[in-house]
């Protein structure tokens, strides 16, 4: 029952070398996200234009699963429109619920596939989802300030 496999090399690599880690110089928006119960904290920075996430970055004080998931999110989302991101959101939730995924869904998930094992650790699913929940809050805020 060792959980070592859940911490795959891809996941650990994203944790050690997070992509898009840091801040944007002039972001349109930034948003804090936290899992108060376990202490994970991230801040996301984004520039948007016409329903496209032109640039994105994040800072985290968080566990490997949270940091890796944020890194993968940025890699997937940068330069993409919100619909594209939303499709991945759906896939990510399927992955976390342990649902079966089709071949092309797998391909779309790319590195995120490496988070699959987290679905076997129910208490850790929220770590993987923190960046996604924060992205949701960001979209709401963007709507409020009429940026989308």
């Amino acid at each position, binding site marked *: *029952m060792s*959980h*070592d496999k*859940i*911490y795959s090399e891809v996941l650990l690599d994203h944790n*050690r070398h997070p992509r898009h880690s840091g801040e944007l110089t002039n972001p349109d928006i930034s948003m804090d996200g936290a899992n108060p119960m376990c202490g994970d904290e991230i801040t996301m920075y984004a520039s948007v234009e016409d329903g496209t996430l032109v640039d994105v970055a994040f800072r985290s004080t968080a566990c*490997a*699963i949270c940091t890796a998931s944020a890194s993968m999110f940025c890699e997937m989302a940068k330069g993409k429109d919100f619909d594209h991101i939303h499709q991945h959101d759906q896939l990510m939730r399927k992955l976390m619920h342990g649902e079966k995924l089709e071949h092309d869904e797998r391909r779309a998930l790319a590195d995120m596939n490496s988070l699959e094992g987290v679905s076997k*650790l129910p208490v*850790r699913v929220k770590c993987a989802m923190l960046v996604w929940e924060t992205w949701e809050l960001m979209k709401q805020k963007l709507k409020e300030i009429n940026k989308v």
Partner: protein
Amino acid sequence: MNPAELYLDFPLLRDNDDEERLIFLDNAATTQKPDTVINAVSAYYRESNANVHRSPYRLGEKSTDLYESARSKTARFIKTADDKEIVFTRGVTESINLLATILSDQLLKPGDVILLTEAEHHSNIVPWQIIAKRCGVKLEFVKLHGDGRFDLSEIESNWNPKTKVFSFQHASNVLGTIHPVNELCEIARCKGAVSIVDGAQSVPHFGIDVSDMGCDFYTFSGHKMVGPTGIGALYGRRELLERFDPAFGGGEMIKRVSLFESEYNDVPHKFEAGTPNIAGAIGLGAAIDYLEKLTMKKVESMVNSLAAYALERLSTIEGLAVHGPQTDRTGAISFWMDGIHPHDIASLLDGDNIAVRAGRHCAEPIMNWLKRPATTRASFYIYNIREDVDRFIDSLNRIRGLFKNVS
């Protein structure tokens, strides 16, 4: 009783279907229960169940006798000669809230000060924040120094003359530090403040003598000392219990009730409104029997030597820092491993059937003091053995390797 095999008394640790024995190292959160405690609870329901104190039949007498004899055991266990100084509560959290409510109604005036410490569990912070709002009192905090200790002379010199209550822990659930409670109570007494001691992490670990300590109130939780959930005790000096009116009303706690006024019952009953956790109290009595049979001296030395061994072996792991003192401590050991978040450590240990806690341990102020977002905590108890430490260390080394291999 072979101390090396105490886990054989604990069904959850003994009767495991997993290939590997469960190594339970989250004892500061809650402990496992021996057969004798589980059976005492069942036997109560099978043989003696009836409401207490008001039943004019033999079954009710039997139930009342068992409940009250659990109170006597509890009194004896923390060394007060007076059973009536023991109020049964759900545990430390309820006890402190009960005291906070009573004191906010009957002692504290706007501008008064309640002194706490930076080391406190949320249970000894949040209740005071709530009543601070209610009655306009101020909170002050004793600072932590060095490996997690208070500076007694600093407490005295910083003492605010408006301080009416000094509430502090006996031992830390994060660092394992054992504080000099006799001296702390002495300061409170000299300064004329009510002293309240949170014994959640001390009562399970060594013999307590409330009379010698000179505290006004002392409280602990049964579930952290091989007892059932939902039961604990509040010790209060007789004089204080008698002086204060209860904060909560209901059955059992009154002598006479008219529509607009009531005459309260004697101590401790006036503080136990409603049907109590009878089975829980009896289970707590059985837990005390178990620990007393082992003797608290033995409990202390077993956990001490295990903690010493664990500290020694942890010191061999590269990039691992233990927080808190090396000696004069309980079995709770918090640590930090460079480059690996505590939650990842805990999940990976769980994969090896080793249960530890990761997070803030309901003690955020101490996390801020440590400047850590969280720590991993392994906390040892009487049924742990050296082999548990070895497996724990082996796993930590493997985890370090796993994270290190990523270049």
